[in-house]
């Protein structure tokens, strides 16, 4: 697991049923591209988050395949429909097998 990985997610606390809301996510991660060399000239191996998903009450909102060209501390902004009250679940998948999760609840009404 990359050190000190911290997710940061913006989701409104409340929405109307059926409303479309905007979600922003950030996570601290070096996204080591595999293109860089250390000071001894050795290639620093690739180590990135390779996939991000967002689900609401188990149903998919977005599923993003991430490549080394994504910037350090990856950021996403996207829209989601909120059919009813429930939980957004955000999941980041690291090359090293680590999984980082964050859950945000939304009330309806």
């Amino acid at each position, binding site marked *: 697991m990359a050190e*000190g990985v*911290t997710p*940061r*997610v*913006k989701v409104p606390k409340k929405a109307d049923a059926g409303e479309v809301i905007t979600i*922003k996510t*950030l*996570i*601290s991660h*070096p996204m080591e591209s595999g293109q860089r060399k250390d000071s001894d000239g050795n290639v620093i191996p690739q180590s990135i988050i390779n996939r991000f998903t967002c689900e609401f009450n188990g149903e998919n909102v977005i599923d993003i395949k991430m490549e080394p060209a994504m*910037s*350090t*501390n990856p*950021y996403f*902004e996207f829209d989601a429909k909120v059919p009813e009250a429930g939980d957004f679940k955000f999941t980041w998948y690291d090359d090293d097998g680590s999984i980082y999760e964050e859950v945000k609840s939304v009330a309806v009404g």
Partner: protein
Amino acid sequence: MKFKAMTAVAALLVAAPIMGMADEEAELVVNGEIEMVTKTEPPAHLEGALPEIMSGWRFRSDETQQTQMDDFDNPGMIFVDQAQAAWDTAEGSEGKSCASCHNEPASSMEGVRAVYPKWNEEAGEVRTLAMQINDCRENQMGAEPWKYTGNEMTAMEALISIESRGMPVNVAIDGPAQSVWEEGKEMYYTRYGQLELSCANCHEDNYGNMIRADHLSQGQINGFPVYRLKNAKLNGSHARFKGCVRDTRAETFKPGSPEFVALELYVASRGNGLSVEAPSVRN
């Protein structure tokens, strides 16, 4: 000598902006609620030196500017979250955390960033925020000091700065701090390095012009620590000073050195009246 140095500057500068510049009239409002002063009257001591003082935010592209306008777009906020965890974590021989003495930063750190660097009567010295943080770590917590420009330090400075966002920078330059401030001023106008450049040559005489593909700012530090797109982390003002002095092709001073403490006090005072923005976003 002066002629030579001027040639060096001229070679680096292009008068006509080549990059799409931000809207000159754009205003910085963070999270739709914190209204920042990014352009204002200069403090009295700058009389005649600058017609107005401007935050570095004004010199950035639209995209970079926008990144600072929402705390969920601003990647610097990740490190504020991390520093909050560090704030609550006991370290060192005394078993204390920052919170043991200072409770929550929201209640105890309001307005602190705005007045640093600041004279410390007990210690008889001008202290930067980073010096004060390390003093707490060593003498109150019995913990190891942090590296002056390291990630833990810049994150903690950002956490503390959050509680002053939108407040005007207001460092004291008179009284016991005056002699240090004078030293800093002397440095600001001293030409360093093989390129024989002073801070003023770029940031007072040529702000608004291009230096290669970069838009020169006034070198204000009201936004420090800043998240730079270039290295994707928070950067302290002394790290920036070091980079600048190095770019003049000089041997540089060390972050945390008395020279850079004096320079920080002076440069901070040039921004008296601008809002504390940290953590800001720059290129």
